[in-house]
């Protein structure tokens, strides 16, 4: 903590954060609150009349057999599957990459730049590229899988009513690896080398050092990164939106943000779209709070 003695009792900080507060109130608090309000109305499209319908949107989403709720449950499950798989994959590959880059091998700067590069590519471009690579006739994924004997015939991977979420998960992993590698690498670099040296002297093997030294020390960084990425990937939209044509919703690979978007803007149930987003938000909020609590608790105990 810094010392604030010289700087206290002053109106300066309020002036400094004023622009942010104004911007936030207008463009974050207001939309956020009104979005929640809209979820209790039957507003159909932008500019339509909004009548208060109470919990109707929510009961329809949770209420059993109607199509809306079937879609909702499906999308909900898919969203969990999507988040878990994408982040799991990112974490594993990111960890390996970070550990390797931390070895300080010659040429690691080049490897680092290359591994980070996908991060700078606009998400739309990468989705297009993957679409092209997944092309059922001339895509290179089909080509290599067939060459290597994994598939007999070319397969249409994405953008179809019955296509699965797995090809999209691969894209998600690819997309997120740079960020995770970056964060984990900097975490690793902040561990003092002396600790490793000491462990080596004590005769700990590579695996032991990883298990009893690296992992515990990396825990705070990992948790922060995990929470951030979970928030992002839970809400991710671009990949699915571009990989699936508007008119043929990727039914089996539909996640909550996609469903919300379809309900709100394609099927003209704006209120229901807002309701889906609200539920999605509440779930994420609870998840983050529980995790943050546990983390904070752990930190306190260890001190």
């Amino acid at each position, binding site marked *: 903590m*810094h*010392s604030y003695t010289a700087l206290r009792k*002053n109106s*300066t*900080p309020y002036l*400094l954060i004023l*622009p*942010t507060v104004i911007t936030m109130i*207008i*463009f*974050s608090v207001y*939309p*956020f609150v009104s*979005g929640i309000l809209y979820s209790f109305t039957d507003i159909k499209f*932008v500019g339509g009349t909004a009548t208060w319908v109470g919990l109707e949107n929510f009961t329809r989403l949770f209420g059993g057999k109607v199509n809306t709720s079937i879609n909702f449950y499906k999308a909900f499950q898919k969203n969990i599957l999507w988040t878990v798989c994408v982040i799991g994959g990112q974490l594993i*590959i990111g960890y*390996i*990459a970070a550990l*390797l*880059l931390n070895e300080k*091998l010659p040429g690691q700067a080049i490897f680092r*730049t*290359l*591994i*980070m*590069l*996908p991060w*700078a*590519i*606009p*998400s*739309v*471009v990468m989705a*297009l*590229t993957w679409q092209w690579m997944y*092309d059922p006739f001339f895509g*290179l994924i089909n*080509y*290599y899988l067939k060459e290597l004997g994994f598939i007999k015939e070319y397969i249409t991977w994405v953008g179809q009513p019955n296509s699965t979420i797995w090809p999209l998960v691969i894209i998600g992993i*690819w997309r997120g690896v*740079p960020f995770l590698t970056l964060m984990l*690498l*900097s975490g690793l670099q*902040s561990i003092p080398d002396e600790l490793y040296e000491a462990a080596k002297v004590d005769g700990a093997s590579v695996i032991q050092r990883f298990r009893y030294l690296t992992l515990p020390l990396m825990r705070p*960084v990992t948790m922060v*990164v995990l929470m*951030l990425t979970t928030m992002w990937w*839970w809400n991710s*939209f671009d990949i699915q*939106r571009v990989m699936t044509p508007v008119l043929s919703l990727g039914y089996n690979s539909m996640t909550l*943000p996609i469903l*919300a978007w379809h309900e709100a*803007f394609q099927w003209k149930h*704006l209120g229901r*779209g*807002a309701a889906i987003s609200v539920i*999605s*938000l509440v779930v*994420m909020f609870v998840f*983050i709070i529980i995790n943050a609590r546990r983390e904070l608790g752990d930190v306190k105990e260890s001190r």
Partner: protein
Amino acid sequence: MKKNFLTRKKVLNVLRITFCYILLIIITVFCIFPIAWIIKTAFETPQFIRNPQIQWMPLEPTLENFTEVLQNPRAMVGRSFLNSLIVAGISTLLSTLITVLAAYAISRFNFIGKNFFAIYLLMINMVPPTLILISMFIFLVKIKLVNSHPGLIIYYTAIGLPLAIWMLKSYFDTIPIDLEEQAMIDGATRLQAIRYIILPLALPGIVSVTVYVFMTHWNEFMAALTIVQKQELRTLPVQIINFLGFERTDWGPMMAFSVLISIPAVVLFVFAQKHLVGGLTTGYTK
């Protein structure tokens, strides 16, 4: 005996390093092969693009795809490039300005509501963009800013703030407060202290935040798609999807277009990489 041990250790070390390199190369290939494929397709002669035989070097390298994109009136590359530049540029400037002020305040002052403010900035991350977008859209409609660049710029500025402030705040934290205090004791005003001491020291952090924010805005797709409909106002990510067309996909020009879109972000990224890595990480992990 001793000699033997040493060579064995050496062999093991070489093996270890080889193993590391192999793994590294596998991961690197996984990360960059799509990018290589974009570039290859962009420079390939159209008739070889749909070649059942995959090859990684263009059979007959050509700029045809680029000229096709640049000349196609439908693509409007120049116009949308300018649009993207205007929108991302202005919103990044605004974001950075507001960010520096707020981050400095949180880092240096203690004030009522500070914790709430800081936590709000972190928590806003988890609000689904769709939710913000829906009400934001209605709001922009009300104030007649939909279908205009100011509308998009305002939206971007607001969306980019929370993370940027959070990152920069942590960067400011690493700069010892004594420096300013010393300067102020020596008779400098606060403004002078900030101008001559803090800003130069924080420049790497500010640059990395700026680059990060610019990249996010440059690449943003969903809001740009929803808020701006006028063709001559569209930004690049939306324009490329529009160019994709209906039922037809010319991968050559498409990939050439992709290369054009990616260049600014990639070049910025490569040049700023070092600072970006430092700045981002201090931001998140502290």
